[in-house]
């Protein structure tokens, strides 16, 4: 059967991202003095998981043909909140986690409601809400500080059975618990349909609003998960402008690298995960080649451009030039 060909066509973006990641990670490992030891894997995985969570959040919105510039702010806000709440007895810690994740979900829902019912363009709406979320984060943590349940933090950033990085297992769990149900629900399909062709979706009677709202809400939840994980990683909270804006921008880069189309309707958050992994590896490559850290932004930019150009080869086949502008 030709079954696998259709599967391949559908997963093309994700597979290219996986390929790019494996290629870069292989270069990294072969040049690493220690090779692929559990410790090396653990460090790489912890750093990559932060960006992966934020990129997954971004991917959900991008699939609906939107873009979320408040992702980094939600990430920072939930980090600051977690540095107050996620501590104490196991019960208190659990309650704190639920609260932090609810705030993430709420932030995403607010974004979705404004975009849907305020009829604002996502880019503008989320610049506004992002500033508000960051403002709240600043009030929570005017100065860096706070703490987190360290037993839990160490467990989440450690290794399972002494080999597998816990953070990877955590990512896998999120994919199974959030992405798989979403992608197979009516709301998930509506999100794709709205991103691919909103007119056709409307004409077909697809529940566009439900789909988009679900995508924005889950996006907030994932960004909140990212904020929580950042707290496990740093043991503290900080309302840092730098992390808010870099994570927002990197999430967009990772999403594109992961084969999610900015025009919407195409790609998956699994692709975004590999996109985030690949993007993180660029930074690690600098380390093994002993390049000055000053070169990192330039180097990252060049690699990103090369990878993205690779993905837009399809434009050469267009026969009506007006389609370039669609």
């Amino acid at each position, binding site marked *: 059967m030709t079954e696998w060909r*259709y599967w391949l066509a559908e997963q093309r973006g994700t597979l290219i991202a996986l390929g790019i990641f494996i290629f870069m990670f292989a270069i990294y490992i072969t040049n690493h003095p220690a090779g692929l030891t559990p410790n090396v894997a653990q460090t790489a995985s912890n750093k990559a998981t932060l960006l992966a969570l934020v990129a997954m959040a971004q991917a959900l919105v991008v699939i609906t043909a939107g873009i979320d510039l408040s992702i980094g702010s939600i990430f920072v806000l939930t980090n600051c909140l977690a540095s107050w709440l996620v501590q104490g007895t196991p019960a208190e810690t659990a309650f704190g986690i639920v609260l932090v994740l609810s705030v993430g979900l709420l932030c995403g829902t607010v974004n979705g409601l404004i975009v849907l019912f305020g009829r604002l363009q996502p880019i503008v709406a989320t610049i506004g809400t992002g500033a508000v979320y960051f403002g709240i984060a600043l009030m929570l943590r005017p100065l860096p500080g706070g703490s987190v349940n360290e037993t839990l933090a160490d467990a989440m950033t450690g290794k399972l059975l002494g080999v597998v990085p816990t953070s990877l297992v955590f990512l896998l769990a999120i994919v199974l618990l959030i992405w798989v149900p979403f992608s*197979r*629900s009516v709301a998930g399909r509506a999100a794709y349909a709205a991103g*691919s062709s909103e007119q*056709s979706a409307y*004409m077909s009677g*697809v529940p566009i609003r439900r789909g988009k709202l679900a995508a924005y809400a889950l996006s907030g939840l994932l960004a909140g998960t990212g904020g929580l994980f950042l707290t496990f990683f740093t043991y503290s909270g900080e309302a840092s402008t730098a992390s808010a804006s870099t994570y927002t921008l990197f999430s967009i880069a990772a999403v594109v690298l992961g084969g999610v189309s900015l025009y919407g309707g*195409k790609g998956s958050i699994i692709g975004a995960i590999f996109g985030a992994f690949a993007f993180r590896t660029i930074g690690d490559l600098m380390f093994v080649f002993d390049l000055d850290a000053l070169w990192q932004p330039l180097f990252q930019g060049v690699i990103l451009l090369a990878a993205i150009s690779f993905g837009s080869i399809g434009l050469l086949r267009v*026969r009506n030039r007006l389609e370039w502008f669609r």
Partner: protein
Amino acid sequence: MDSIPLFQMEKVSKRYGGVHALEKADLTVEAGRIHAILGENGAGKSTLIKIMAGVVMPDEGRMLMKDQEMSFSSPAAAVRQGVACIFQELSLIPDLSVADNIMITDPPKRFGLIDRRKQRLIAMDALARAGAEDIHPAALVGDLPLSRRQLVEIAKALARDPKILILDEATSALTAADVEKVFAVLRRLRNEGMALLFISHRMNEITELADTCTVFRNGRNVATYEAGSRSENEVVEMMIGRHYSHVFPPKPRAAAIARRPALECRTLSWDNRLKNISLSVRPGEIVGLGGLDGQGQRELLLAIFGVLRGMDGDIFVDGQRVSINSPSAAKVQSLGMALIPEDRKTEGLMLPMSVRDNLSFAALDMLSVRGIIDSQAERQANEDMLRLLAVKTDGLNGPVSALSGGNQQKVVIAKWLMRKPGIILLNDPTRGIDVGTKQEIYQLLRRLAEQGAAILYYSTDYDELIGCCDRVLVLYDGTIKGEFAGNELNEHALVASALNVDHDMGRTRIEGPSS
């Protein structure tokens, strides 16, 4: 017919702005019959269907389903009531798979999630009912060729188990082999008791398929008859009726005597939508492009203007073979082409920008010195144009969106006239503008021709083609089916040729579309 009809529409009207798209239209649809709707461009067919499918709400009138009055507030509501529609512009989502698309409104679920295996079985069943077993349900719709997509669209409608199935030009993209298959499917559905509403521009398809026919003209239903009870000539007469007449400038007696053509195309072909088109336009001549909407006229103009890639055939300007690969190459002084686009809002104007900016866009190179715009020369040129075309505007600085439709269209034309083009291509420039402005445009075109311009003019209005053009070429399915000039240039000939009916014979010789 004493039983209650399946669906009735009574005195339904719809206005867009001041234009009556439908005026007190009636329609009765019976179960187990194929009902064809005929009419010219703009006769109200599309509006009728949009109302039935819940896309637009009627201004007045009522609809009855099995004697129950009802109204559709959205396409989804119409589907729930058993009306499924296959639109001319497809309603498929390109980035989803065939199976996802077929089951888009109501997928089968298990534990609250979409049951993909079951969805796939239903999709395969629907594809089989649509005679498209060979389409793989996992294929992405965006990767399928147009004719396959149309079959998916039919399968999608069937999966909803409709009582009434509307097909709006649903066969226009199909190959001859697919048409046969689809027709067999449609007949089977009819025999199963479904009501089918069939809109097609292809007369032979209607003769072959329909049980009942209704003719629309100017937003009203003018006649309903049993299929086969009227000759094709009579049908064409009913479709034409009598129109309001325009005032056209007199045509020169012997236009453009045997001079070298300014524009010549030889065997142009593109993407199976233009097939072997050869034509020439001489200076001083207005050549019309006719035919039903969407037969390749738009593509032909785009091809000449350098927008399409991968085109076969040659284009000659003033006898020189040229290869034009973009609009900016087409407009250079040595070629001197201009294309007045069809949709002024997206392809003609930058709506929020000022009248001045819009007027100058196409001629910036002529108004600037070393990249700096000479504002003196610009104002002079702009004012000349406003005077020449009598554009009604508060001044050059206001946004062009504040002008009326007719004046906006004048700005689009003016911006190209600033280049003093020798070859002017027009894509239905009078659509949706008032009669007064239309007449001004006719006069202007004739004046430009007298000054030596070669004009290729596509219009969906037959009156315009007859009144304005020296010659008219009728396109059908991407080829030129007929050329009319002088006394042969009349409405009957144009309509008959557009429908690909041989009007001289008035009998039944009909050619199918070449595949």
